[in-house]
């Protein structure tokens, strides 16, 4: 039994066996073998070690022929480990005492060995843990061969454990079988967190070494609400968490009853709750949770889930699919927000010293006009089927906004000339997520149909905190008075100009901030589908006057601690279950 603390990034609790993903997507199955089969597994293991050694020797000989002895000798240590009886015996012992299959025994023994290396004081020696991982893979590949179990057809419900989940990996998951995520790295806004919340399953990230502490098949409790992962829970913990899971399901059921009720305060003020999505298929679930439309459709996932650049037709099919599923409800399509932490599949991170301040998002689009135009064309063509709105991300100067509009106008002309079926007068809005845009919100308000405040980037750029860096992630908070005063000013500027304004960052879906945002005059909240009921419950339980009082009080504080403490007190009065 081991309890690990991380950052809970998607709420809920789940108890199920783990599947551990490594960079090569090898899934290590755990099977108990009966006493008679132990010898068979031992034989398989010996064979795998021999074969791995042979393969390595061939590889070394090739290296030696090509690059000389210096390079090849790097692998002498690998060969040495493979023929080391101590190592082989530790795996054999695992099979003989635990009666597991050879793959699982290798994974367990190698993890122990890796742990020994990682604990070494000498950094050079600790670094040799890479060699351990390497030979582990070599042996596993031999054992599993080509018959490794993919994640697409899982036989049972599982939690996925990984160092970090890559977009290409999450795209390939069997979403009906995956019930939770736990990762070594990441923060509240990492890819894993976003996908988990979209799927409505618990996730804990920033756990440090969860992927080496857990072996495939281990029973795991992932508590995404409290940010805890328990490996091999004892009987007491199981009972406690089963009870907790039951309570959680009760709470969810209660929230589900809110689905068809409007999001109005007790004094009759209505707000719009929308959902954020990555894939059109998520729309049905979002509507089931009570969302009234899609306030943020993150189109970059079209790119990240694909090996080749999507064509205009790929874009069109996805958008048309989304529009049809919405059946007349609004769909805000955010144009490509690639770059920095999100890269196109296969291209990897760009070589920029400071990618978050670099050629990303709208800047990248304006530098890649054919790509940008293909997307805009597809959006306008899909717009004939319903209520489509365009949103440009990461606008930092008025010129960028005007340029993007010019490109849109070019596209409209092209489509007109071609006689294509499209809709030209779609509402155009912008994300406010750079402090320069927030500070000049009243200027921007004259040129767009709506604002959407992207709190994740706004916080990062205002507070100078990289949210994915675990060492400073603690400084990342929407509650910082500087962030709050920017948000207040943007909402105020939009309301004065009479344009729409929403918050589509994580903050919109956090119950802690619902009263505050409502009190600041926000009329549209866009969040992950699973968060809609809870936010709605808060809205339905308060008055605009109370929310305004809360906002006034919050704006008088000078530290995020006061803000969080006060908001927690106020919110707890409405939904004690939330905290």
């Amino acid at each position, binding site marked *: 039994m081991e309890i690990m603390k991380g950052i809970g990034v998607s709420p809920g609790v789940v108890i199920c066996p783990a599947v551990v993903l490594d960079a090569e997507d090898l899934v290590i199955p755990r099977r108990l073998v009966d006493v008679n089969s132990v010898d068979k597994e031992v034989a398989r293991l010996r064979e795998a070690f021999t074969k791995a050694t042979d393969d390595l020797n061939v590889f070394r000989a090739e290296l030696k022929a090509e690059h000389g002895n210096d390079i090849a000798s790097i692998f002498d240590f690998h060969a*040495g480990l493979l023929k*080391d009886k*101590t190592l082989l015996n530790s795996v054999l012992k695992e099979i003989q005492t635990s009666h597991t299959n050879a793959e699982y025994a290798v994974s367990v023994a190698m993890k122990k060995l890796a742990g020994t290396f990682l604990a*070494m004081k000498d950094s*050079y*020696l600790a670094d040799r843990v890479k060699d351990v991982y390497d030979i582990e893979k070599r042996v596993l590949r031999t054992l599993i061969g080509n018959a490794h179990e993919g994640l697409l057809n899982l036989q049972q419900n599982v939690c996925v454990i990984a160092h970090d989940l890559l977009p290409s990996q999450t795209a390939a998951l069997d979403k009906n079988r995956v019930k939770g995520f736990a990762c070594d790295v990441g923060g509240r806004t990492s890819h894993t967190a976003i996908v988990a919340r979209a799927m409505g399953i618990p996730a804990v990230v920033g756990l440090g070494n969860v992927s080496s502490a857990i072996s495939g098949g281990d029973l795991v409790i992932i508590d995404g609400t409290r940010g805890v992962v328990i490996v091999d829970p004892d009987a007491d913990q199981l009972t406690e968490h089963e009870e907790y899971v039951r309570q959680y399901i009760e709470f969810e059921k209660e929230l589900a009853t809110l689905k068809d009720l409007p999001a109005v305060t007790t004094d009759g003020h209505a707000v719009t709750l929308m959902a954020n999505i990555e894939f059109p298929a998520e729309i049905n679930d979002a509507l089931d949770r009570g969302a009234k439309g899609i306030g943020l459709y993150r189109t970059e996932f079209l790119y990240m889930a694909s090996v080749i650049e999507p064509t205009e037709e790929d874009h069109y099919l996805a958008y048309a699919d989304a529009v049809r599923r919405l059946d007349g409800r609004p769909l805000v399509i955010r144009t490509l927000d690639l770059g920095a932490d999100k890269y196109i599949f296969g291209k990897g991170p760009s070589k920029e010293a400071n990618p978050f301040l670099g050629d990303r998002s709208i800047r990248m689009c304006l530098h890649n006009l054919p790509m940008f135009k293909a997307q805009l064309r597809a959006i306008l063509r899909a717009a004939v089927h319903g209520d489509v709105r365009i949103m440009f991300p990461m606008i930092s100067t008025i010129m960028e906004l005007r340029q993007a509009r010019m490109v849109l106008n070019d596209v409209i002309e092209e489509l007109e000339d071609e006689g294509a079926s499209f809709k030209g007068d779609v509402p155009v809005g912008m994300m406010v997520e750079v402090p320069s845009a927030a500070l000049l919100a009243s200027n921007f308000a004259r040129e767009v149909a709506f604002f959407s405040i992207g709190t994740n980037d706004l916080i990062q750029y205002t507070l100078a905190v990289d949210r994915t860096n675990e060492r400073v992630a603690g400084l990342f908070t929407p509650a910082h008075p500087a962030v709050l005063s920017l948000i207040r000013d943007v909402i105020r500027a939009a309301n004065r100009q009479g344009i729409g304004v929403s918050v589509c960052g994580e903050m919109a879906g956090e119950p802690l901030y619902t009263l505050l945002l409502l009190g600041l005059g926000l009329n549209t909240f866009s969040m992950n589908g699973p968060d809609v009921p809870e936010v709605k419950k808060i809205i339905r339980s308060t008055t605009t006057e109370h929310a305004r009082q809360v906002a006034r009080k919050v704006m008088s504080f000078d530290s995020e601690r006061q803000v969080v403490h006060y908001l927690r007190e106020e919110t707890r009065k409405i939904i004690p279950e939330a905290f």
Partner: protein
Amino acid sequence: MNSEPYSPAGPSTMSVVTRDIVIQNHLGLHARPAMQFVDLANQFTSEITVEKPLADGVDEAVTVDGKSVMQMITLEATQGTKLHVTASGEDAAAAVEQLAKLVDDKFGEDE
């Protein structure tokens, strides 16, 4: 350093030989030197153990199999670490002699 190996009986009988060695090469007993040591040790029929005794910075004495590179690495023997090499078997004296020489020659590393 102990220069005279302990060798109580004549050739072709069981003997136990022990000697103190000090790791002198710059990087210590890292992957390549550990491999050289183990490869050499495996050429002898004697059982070979290596002990890292208690010392400054060594909280716990460890004894490992000198024929296992995995165990040798876990000694974490950095430059200046003192070790006892013990061989027991027919070729114990020669084993200890040659292993000590390998260590004294800094595993052939240029410093």
